[in-house]
């Protein structure tokens, strides 16, 4: 009961945060290599409670072996620490690009689809799929979910990072770079005209 009320309080907080899109929740992930790996990266996630989807956009570099998988785990006993069950299915969703040492991918988890979930996660939180969905939604809101990217060197996950609820989407590095490139272009054009 304590857990539930805490979850509800967290959910209420999360509801209150983004006013314009009441049903879209954003998460930021700093990906770090597990022991013995120099890999790193970042990811942005969008939980859409109207479409009931979880969109993931990830960038990474320095894997010791080609990428093999991406997984969401939930729900750790305390926020931002410890291990938890794999919530998403063993197979990566459509859009995932395996075989990369560095790069990026964008995938969308359909949270209404039983195939999206790991059977063990549904068994632990079920029996209904909606129970598993709720466990994931509240786990995300509580900061008790994390992302892993597996490689041939570390199949269980070479990169890992907690899903941190954020109020608004963080500009992607690529977008920021585009902006910089645009500014540089303007500066160049201005200097040429002179």
């Amino acid at each position: 009961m304590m857990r539930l009320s805490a979850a509800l309080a967290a959910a209420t907080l999360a509801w209150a945060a983004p006013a314009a899109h009441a049903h879209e929740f954003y998460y930021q992930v700093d990906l770090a290599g597990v022991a013995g790996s120099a890999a790193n990266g970042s990811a942005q996630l969008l939980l859409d409670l109207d479409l009931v989807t979880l969109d993931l956009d990830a960038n990474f570099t320095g894997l010791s072996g080609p990428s093999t998988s991406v997984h969401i785990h939930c729900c750790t006993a305390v926020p931002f620490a410890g291990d938890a069950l794999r919530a998403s299915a063993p197979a990566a969703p459509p859009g995932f690009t395996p075989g990369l040492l560095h790069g990026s991918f964008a995938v969308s988890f359909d949270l209404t689809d039983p195939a999206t979930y790991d059977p063990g996660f549904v068994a632990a939180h079920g029996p209904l799929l909606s129970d598993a969905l709720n466990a994931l939604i509240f786990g995300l809101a509580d900061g008790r979910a994390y992302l892993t990217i597996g490689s041939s060197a570390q199949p269980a996950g070479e990169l890992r990072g907690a899903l941190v609820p954020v109020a608004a989407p963080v500009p992607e590095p690529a977008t920021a770079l585009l902006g910089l490139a645009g500014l540089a272009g303007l500066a160049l054009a201005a200097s040429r005209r002179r």
Partner: protein
Amino acid sequence: MRQALIPAALAAAALISPNLAHAIPVTYYAKLSGPNEAPANASPALGYAEVVIDVAASTMEVIVSFRNLVGTTTASHIHCCTGNAGAGTAGVATVTPSFTGFPNGVSSLVVPYDRTFNMAVVAGSFNTAYVNSNGGTAASAFTALVNGINAGKAYLNIHTTSFPGGEIRGFLAPVPEAGTAGMLATGLLAIALGSRRRAR
């Protein structure tokens, strides 16, 4: 008996004809439940939604009641349009974050929520994102919404604290009004009787 029917039939015809000349407001109905959700849940709650659309007047009346929600309400919308009729999920078509004046924080609503929206304007009636992806104007968005409802691809959803993705929902479907159907039957019967009399 036959003679008594004629004035009744005339009266019925008089009632129907003005409605036929103009667009008749169409009533849609949905039974809201947890098993109707995607994914389905075991909520014991039940709800009823009635949506009355008057295309000529560009209005949409939304009437919703429900009881026994596990959580308390956080928002309600009409979502449109799913890929297939009666299944899946879609984005919000109506005003966000929720229907204007829809009660939040309650688990039962015995006295129905009842509000008429002016669908000729975007603000206060539509989700801007829906308008932008459906022609960019209130008129084009309303047409898309009505088409989606007629195709069985729109649902009314109630989100709660316990089921943030939606605790109860139902796909909207047109219902023939009992009164109209009855009047129409009376009228047809009278016409049939009248022609039989004339033939004799």
